[in-house]
């Protein structure tokens, strides 16, 4: 059986039973989250329907410009998402560092993966480019969000230690080295941890999709391993850039801690 079973609208509706169960439970327990849950599910549905039609259109009209436009849009939304996920004010210069890290880190990984690992032709083939770019950018986004918030909080919390080091003739790099290290580790740990459970605790989404679509599990794992390593690579590069460039924005040209958050 290599043909995938189409769910169809009616049986898809049946899946919404899970949402109704949740809403009933939440309501009975007096947790005032019904609205948020309902709108999240609604948003998920609308977004996925929209993206389904958009992808059908893009796959039918292969073009470099279209693929690149999608890439730019993904990066744009990822960066916006990072800004809103980080719960503390982000300095303007740190925002620029975030953009640069995302574009350079995930961009380099996407092209490396498509050109060298998969060797897809043409390179802008949207059926490969878009889902892979999505996974790489999405995971890098999570890493950068964690990293940026941690960096900002640590720079505030450890102000005395930093100034204490500066007073002793430390460079800003020396003074923030422990913070940069901690931030880097904290931001890449979720990616490392997700590798550990992979295949045992759960089958990753892409692999599940490929198996459902009738592909041999052996090919599916090849893709999964390769994409997992690429995600690791992209998260590492983006977070590394964020931390290495990021700490500098907290200092002025006299190696003093900048006081304002702007």
């Amino acid at each position, binding site marked *: 059986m290599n043909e995938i079973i189409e769910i169809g609208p009616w049986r898809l509706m049946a899946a919404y039973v899970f949402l109704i169960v949740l809403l009933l439970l939440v309501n009975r327990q007096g947790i005032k989250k019904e609205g948020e849950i309902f709108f999240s599910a609604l948003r998920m549905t609308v977004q996925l329907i929209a993206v389904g039609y958009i992808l059908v259109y893009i796959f039918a009209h292969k073009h470099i410009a279209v693929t690149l436009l999608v890439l730019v849009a993904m990066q744009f939304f990822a960066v916006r998402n990072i800004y809103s996920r980080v719960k503390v004010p982000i300095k303007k210069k740190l925002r620029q560092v975030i953009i640069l890290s995302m574009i350079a880190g995930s961009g380099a990984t996407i092209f490396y993966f498509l050109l060298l690992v998969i060797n897809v032709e043409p390179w802008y083939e949207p059926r490969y480019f878009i889902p892979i770019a999505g996974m790489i950018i999405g995971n890098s986004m999570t890493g950068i969000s964690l990293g940026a918030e941690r960096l900002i909080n640590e720079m505030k919390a450890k102000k*005395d230690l930093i100034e204490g080091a500066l007073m002793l003739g430390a460079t800003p790099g020396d003074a923030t080295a422990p913070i940069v290290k901690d931030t880097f580790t904290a931001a890449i740990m979720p990616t490392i941890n997700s590798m550990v459970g992979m295949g045992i605790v759960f089958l990753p989404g892409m692999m599940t999709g490929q198996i459902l679509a009738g592909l041999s599990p052996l090919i599916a794992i090849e893709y999964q391993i390769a994409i997992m390593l690429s995600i690791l690579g992209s998260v590492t590069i983006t977070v590394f850039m964020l931390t290495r460039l990021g700490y500098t924005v907290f200092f002025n040209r006299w190696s003093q801690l900048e006081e304002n958050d702007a």
Partner: protein
Amino acid sequence: MYNLKNVQFKNILDIKELTIEAGKITCIVGESGSGKTTLLKLLNHLLNYEQGLIEFRGKDLKELDAVTLRREVILVPQAPVIFPGTVRDNLLIGRQFSRKDPLPDEELLKEIHRLSLYKKLDEQTGTFSGGEKQRLALARVILIDPEVLLLDEPTSALDDNTLDKVMDRILGYVKSRQKTMVMVTHSKQQAKITGEKIITLDKGLVSSIEEVA
């Protein structure tokens, strides 16, 4: 060593003219809130003066590389920063920041003993008292051996007996090596014993400069 002209910082300090001579011990006294600590931070260039001019060896402080300056001019705040780790880590980190080679254990031990701090080098510093932290920070600075020492109430957490021993060591070190030292203290008496020049600050203004014979 330092020349200050019309230096203003927020509404905390307003200094018309002030000179700090090389190879001398200068004491700064004044009530709390008179701007003593701010003045030290300006000299270490940890803070930026908004107006006027501070010259270090005849050069505008703002034109100098701040990190290089701070390796020559080290500031020990009243509540010195002790880094997580052992006594040894804390003694050596200063030299590491200044890009100087580490020193052997004997020299580290000798210095903390001179400052009446009898601890093992492997001891963790997390539970140190305020006075122990002050002595550890003073030992760290002496081991870096900078040109200028800026000390902010360096003995505020010490009992009288220890205070005398610590001051003897600091003064012995500074005088024998002809270092420049600027010490903030709230005690006029201590300033008179220690200082060769006493600057009194009052609400951010220099109210008197006294040369001690």
